[in-house]
């Protein structure tokens, strides 16, 4: 108590007031969501970069099902033609856009000049503009009636009408699909318009009446119907603008709006935007949905409780958010609501809800139809606030539904692709795998022809993003349907004359195929190479670069085979590296780097020499990417057989070291790794001495990362090649450098330690002169202030112990041993663990007799340390103690060992398996030296404890004692202990016995008769676990005594085990079945068959099922051996069926 009057002493501290205040203020702020920040991180869109988010800009078209045509007798090429027209238009648009920008830029530049001169623009310029205008007008007219782009905000019912009209009016002649330019196709009527016969096997039923709305690829956030984005109405304009001075002008006669005028009524009802544009949803639900945003429901009528609900969900699922009279709904509307409910359950529900919903939607997929399903699923997947889990679930839905829908999916292929393709370039591996799976299933369902006609328009799309994802999707199609089927298409695309983009994408498809399929490209290698080979001399640089990358991927996939397939491209490649610079050169070098390892030695050597000149020139490049490629190519060239060490030493090494062994390279992690790898590869040819001589001085460099790079290189080189190449002079410098860098290191990691250990071990006896110096370093560091440094010194001791012993420096070892012994009071567990491990290493090499400190002093010191709870300490000490128990138990009094036995029991509870195993083994060693009685009594007593793990480990230890000291020492004790009335003890005894018989194998034959009574008791016990464990014992026993003449005892046990075959508990029945199978080995299948025959045709199904299961295991185990034992059933023969096995009745 504090004296009165003194300031009151508080005995507890709480949060400062101002901090509390801050939180309160935050809470008061309206709409403050503390999780908003983390929520946005879970969202895929907010995590990804601009490139990935370009997927929101994609436009999906409906892929008309060409197979549907035969149904109504007209040639339908609508989908493909439409798509091609659209893509042409987009390209044209992009081109005009670029041209305009270019023009503006030029104008800006020329503007000043023009103003100065103040003259009329030249006639040529005027003519240009006029021509452009004319062309644009022509374009607009040509597409009058057809759509420019599918957007959300256009009137939904216009599209199908147009399409049918058009397809009816102008049935087009078929052209080559690859290069067809639908825009300029003549409107010549097809000859006689004879409907082409098509096979009907995969036709789809005609679509239902409701027109499909093209799905939008924009998220609702940017919707034009959003109240922030929509056009102003006339009323609003009246309010804004002064009443006089303005007049409403009518549109000029030729004006065709690029965006269809909005139906005002519709936009009123979809005030909040979202994906329900095609729905005539009523205002109440929308209002509810809009008002719901702050407090979101977790109970939806007809859905039940959900795990979560987001504001975006309220928009999508507005229709099912309120109660409505189901009798008023049409069938389609009901269906739609049903789908929405299921989707909501899958997306937001708890796992059990999700599971049933997923099963329902899968089962009913064909009833729902492809249209209604994908119209609901796909927009959800394009939602900007989508999270990983949601995406995963929705993708799963698509996968399941696809499987059920099969070819019904055709009209939606492109829409699905637009949504799924982005997954292929996702940074998450599992997303990529999912994407691949979907596309592969999709291509199997839709068929190759349809996939090609759907994806063809995207191949020369103006947007690189689209081309990239399409190429990847094509590679998936190729792997799903086989490369050969896609080859003709690929050949055509790669030779396309229309656009370089098509060629680029075609080559990229081949590259992706190679990356994805690996060595599976080998059978088609020549075709694939020929397919893209000509791209090396393309006039577009991007195509050339991509070709080189494609060849690199093919060569990498084909390695080490297939060089003959690359014959045609060798010349252009090697010419190419002389012609190109920059990115293209990097790609060419990469291709060469992967092709050289495939070559025969003499060719490899020739081509390496050709490329080396360029490589050396590029050593000095400042481009990071180029650097990496150059290093990689050097590594690949050095690894080939034909390149000699002499050549590397003379021509490569000087420049290589000048350019890459500089401090700057050590700073970037990737460069660092690449330089080390390449240098190690070079050393395989050039030799250890050559490389070490060049770098060894850098071990004393002032930059630590650089020293580390040197050390890692030397470590790797010496670990693979040894140290015999190192001469005396180099040896001195090496050891000197290593000691220096070891002492100077500031960040303690493994590199220096490993390096030290590797080099010293490789040098072996040659290190003797330096040992005094090294050991004094260690000793000095063992007393360092920092625990890390002490730990490292101890670790180094463990690594050097063997070498010190080899050098005969026992003095040093005993000195180290003593110092370490004194350090056993270490307080940091990591360091203590290392010190004990080091002491163990010394004890290992010196032997127990010569050990200094003597074992009898060391062990009592270890006993209290065993109580340390740290895993590393436990493991190190149990290893040391086990070693002493194994080799030098006689130096320690028995009393001390007993004490250790009790401590070891605690270690049986350790989490780490290695510790428990070491402890159990130690029991074996101790029992061997002390005699089993005492150890056994400790262990048997331990069977009474509570923890299961401890009991289990005790039983294992008992078994090990039995194995090391002979079963006769243990089995009587176990039999005796089994008489205890305690359940745990009896189970423990049974378990111990089971392990004993498992370990001793055939020796069991001597003990089979002695344990029969115990097993009789256990197998007839009421307790299930007893019978289970006893069955396990029977199994091990039966397998152990097979063929050793214990059939009588085994038959007796079989009779006791057999009635248990009707058990239902999985563990018990498992054990019983295994025992019965073991009996097959011992007693033979004939005996077992006689048991089984009793019940195979039993009237009770339950009995038959069990007996047939046993019969099946029997049959699979000994099919042939059962032939003589089948009963003779010839009397069952009736009519034409003769069941006698007459071949067996023959005798001579």
């Amino acid at each position, binding site marked *: 108590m504090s004296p009165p009057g003194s300031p009151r002493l508080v005995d507890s501290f709480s949060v400062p007031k101002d901090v509390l205040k801050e939180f309160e203020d935050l809470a008061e702020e309206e709409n403050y969501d503390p999780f908003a920040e983390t929520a946005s991180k879970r969202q895929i869109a907010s995590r990804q970069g601009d490139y990935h988010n370009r997927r929101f800009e994609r436009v999906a078209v409906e892929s008309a099902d060409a197979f549907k045509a035969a149904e109504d007798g007209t040639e339908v090429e609508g989908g493909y033609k439409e798509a091609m027209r659209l893509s042409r238009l987009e390209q044209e648009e992009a081109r005009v856009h670029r041209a305009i920008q270019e023009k503006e830029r030029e104008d800006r530049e020329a503007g000043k000049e023009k103003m100065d001169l103040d003259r009329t623009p030249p006639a040529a310029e005027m003519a240009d503009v006029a021509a452009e205008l004319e062309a644009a007008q022509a374009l607009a007219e040509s597409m009058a009636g057809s759509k420019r782009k599918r957007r959300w905000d256009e009137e939904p019912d216009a599209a199908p009408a147009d399409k049918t009209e058009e397809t009816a009016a102008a049935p087009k002649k078929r052209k080559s699909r690859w290069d067809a330019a639908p825009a300029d196709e003549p409107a010549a009527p097809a000859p006689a318009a004879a409907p082409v016969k098509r096979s009907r096997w995969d036709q789809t039923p005609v679509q239902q009446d409701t027109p499909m709305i093209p799905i939008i690829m924009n998220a609702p956030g940017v919707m034009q119907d959003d109240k922030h984005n929509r056009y102003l109405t006339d009323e609003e304009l009246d309010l804004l603008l002064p009443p006089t001075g303005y007049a409403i002008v009518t549109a000029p006669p030729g004006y065709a709006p690029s965006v269809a005028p909005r139906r005002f009524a519709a936009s009123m009802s979809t005030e909040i935007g979202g994906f329900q544009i095609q729905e005539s949803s009523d205002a109440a639900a929308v209002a509810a949905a809009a008002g719901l945003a702050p407090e979101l429901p977790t109970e939806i009528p007809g859905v039940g409780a959900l795990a979560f609900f987001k504001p975006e969900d309220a928009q999508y699922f507005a229709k099912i958010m309120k109660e409505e009279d189901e009798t008023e709904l049409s069938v389609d509307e009901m269906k739609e609501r049903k789908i929405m409910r299921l989707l909501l359950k899958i997306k937001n529900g708890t796992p059990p809800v999700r599971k049933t919903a997923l099963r329902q939607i899968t089962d009913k997929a064909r009833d729902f139809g492809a249209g209604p399903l994908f119209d609901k699923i796909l927009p959800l997947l394009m939602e900007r606030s989508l999270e990983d889990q949601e995406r995963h679930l929705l993708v799963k839905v698509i996968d399941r539904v696809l499987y059920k829908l099969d070819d019904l999916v055709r009209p939606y292929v492109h829409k699905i692709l637009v949504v799924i393709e982005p997954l292929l370039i996702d940074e998450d591996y599992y997303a990529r795998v999912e994407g691949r799976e979907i596309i592969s299933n999709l291509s199997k369902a839709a068929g190759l022809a349809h996939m090609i006609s759907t994806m063809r328009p995207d191949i020369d799309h103006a947007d690189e993003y689209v081309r990239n994802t399409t190429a990847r999707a094509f590679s998936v199609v190729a792997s799903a349907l086989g490369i050969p089927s896609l080859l003709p298409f690929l050949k055509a695309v790669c030779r396309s004359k229309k656009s370089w983009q098509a060629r680029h994408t075609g080559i990229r498809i081949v590259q992706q195929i190679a990356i994805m399929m690996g060595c599976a490209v080998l059978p088609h290698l020549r075709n694939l190479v020929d397919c893209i080979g000509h791209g090396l001399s393309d006039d577009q640089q991007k195509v050339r670069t991509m070709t080189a990358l494609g060849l690199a991927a093919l060569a990498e996939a084909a390695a080490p085979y297939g060089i003959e397939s690359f014959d045609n491209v060798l010349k252009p490649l090697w010419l190419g590296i002389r012609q190109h610079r920059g990115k293209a050169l990097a790609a060419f070098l990469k291709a060469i780097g992967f092709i050289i390892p495939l070559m025969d030695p003499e060719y490899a050597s020739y081509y390496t020499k050709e490329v080396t000149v360029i490589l050396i020139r590029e050593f000095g490049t400042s481009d990071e990417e180029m650097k990496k490629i150059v290093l990689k190519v050097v590594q690949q060239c050095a690894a080939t057989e034909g390149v000699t060490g002499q050549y590397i030493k003379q021509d490569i090494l000087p420049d290589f070291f000048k350019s890459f062994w500089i401090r700057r390279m050590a700073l970037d992690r990737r460069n660092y790794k690449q330089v080390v790898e390449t240098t190690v590869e070079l050393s395989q040819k050039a030799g250890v001495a050559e490389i070490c001589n060049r770098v060894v001085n850098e071990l004393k460099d002032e930059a630590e990362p650089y020293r580390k790079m040197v050390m890692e290189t030397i470590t790797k080189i010496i670990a693979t090649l040894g140290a015999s190449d190192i001469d005396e002079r180099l040896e001195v410098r090496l050891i000197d450098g290593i000691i220096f860098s070891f002492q100077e290191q500031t960040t303690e990691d493994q590199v220096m330690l490993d390096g030290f250990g590797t080099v010293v071990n490789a040098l072996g006896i040659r290190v003797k002169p330096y040992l005094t110096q090294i050991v004094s370093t260690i000793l000095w560091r063992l007393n360092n202030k920092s625990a890390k440094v002490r730990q490292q010194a101890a670790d180094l001791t463990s690594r050097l112990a063997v070498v010190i012993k080899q050098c005969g420096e026992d003095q040093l070892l005993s000195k180290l041993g003593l110092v370490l012994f004194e350090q056993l009071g270490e307080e940091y567990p990591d360091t203590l663990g290392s010190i004990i491990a080091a002491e163990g290493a010394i004890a290992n090499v010196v032997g127990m007799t010569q050990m200094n400190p003597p074992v009898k002093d060391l062990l009592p010191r270890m006993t209290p340390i065993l109580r340390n709870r740290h895993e590393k300490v436990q493991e190190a000490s149990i290893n040391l103690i086990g070693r002493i128990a194994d080799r030098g138990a006689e130096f320690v009094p028995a009393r001390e060992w007993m004490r250790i036995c009790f401590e070891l029991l605690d270690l049986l509870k350790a989490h780490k398996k290695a510790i428990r195993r070491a402890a159990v083994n130690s029991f074996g060693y101790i029992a061997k030296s002390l005699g089993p009685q005492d150890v056994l009594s400790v262990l048997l007593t331990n069977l009474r404890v509570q923890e299961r793990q401890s009991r289990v480990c005790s039983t294992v230890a008992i078994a090990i004692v039995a194995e090391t000291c002979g079963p006769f020492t243990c089995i009587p004790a176990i039999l005796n202990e089994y008489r205890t009335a305690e359940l745990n003890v009896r189970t423990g005894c049974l378990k111990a016995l089971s392990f004993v018989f498992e370990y001793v194998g055939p020796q069991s034959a001597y003990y089979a008769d002695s344990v029969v009574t115990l097993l009789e008791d256990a197998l007839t016990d009421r307790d299930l676990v007893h019978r289970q464990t006893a069955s396990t014992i029977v199994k091990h026993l039966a397998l152990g005594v097979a063929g050793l003449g214990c059939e009588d005892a085994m038959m007796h046990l079989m009779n006791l085990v057999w009635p248990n075959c009707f058990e239902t508990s999985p563990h018990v029945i498992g054990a019983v079945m295994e025992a019965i199978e073991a009996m097959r080995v011992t007693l033979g299948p004939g005996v077992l068959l006689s048991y089984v025959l009793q019940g195979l*045709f039993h009237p009770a199904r339950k009995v038959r099922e069990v007996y047939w299961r046993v019969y099946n295991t029997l049959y699979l185990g000994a099919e042939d051996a059962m032939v003589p034992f*089948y009963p003779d059933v010839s009397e069952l023969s009736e009519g034409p069926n003769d069941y006698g096995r007459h071949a067996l009745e023959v005798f001579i």
Partner: protein
Amino acid sequence: MSSELRYTANTQQENLFARYTGTGHADITKHEWLVHQQRDTLASIAGHAPLLSFLAIADGEAIGRAKFEVTEKMLQPCGPPPLKDED
């Protein structure tokens, strides 16, 4: 006991068994089972050279002929399958 064991370990084992020819189940007919037995017997004879030559000598046939006959018999060792009951 854990439900997952009940649903995986044992059922999986049974599915695994069902993949092999010659295994049976609770609803197997007499005919099916006996046909398997016959085929096993014939296969055993064809596969063990001593058994085969024994049979060949007993029948007074060439070994190749005996083997051929044994193999042929495996097709319908007990005659045509009996007609199924109406139910």
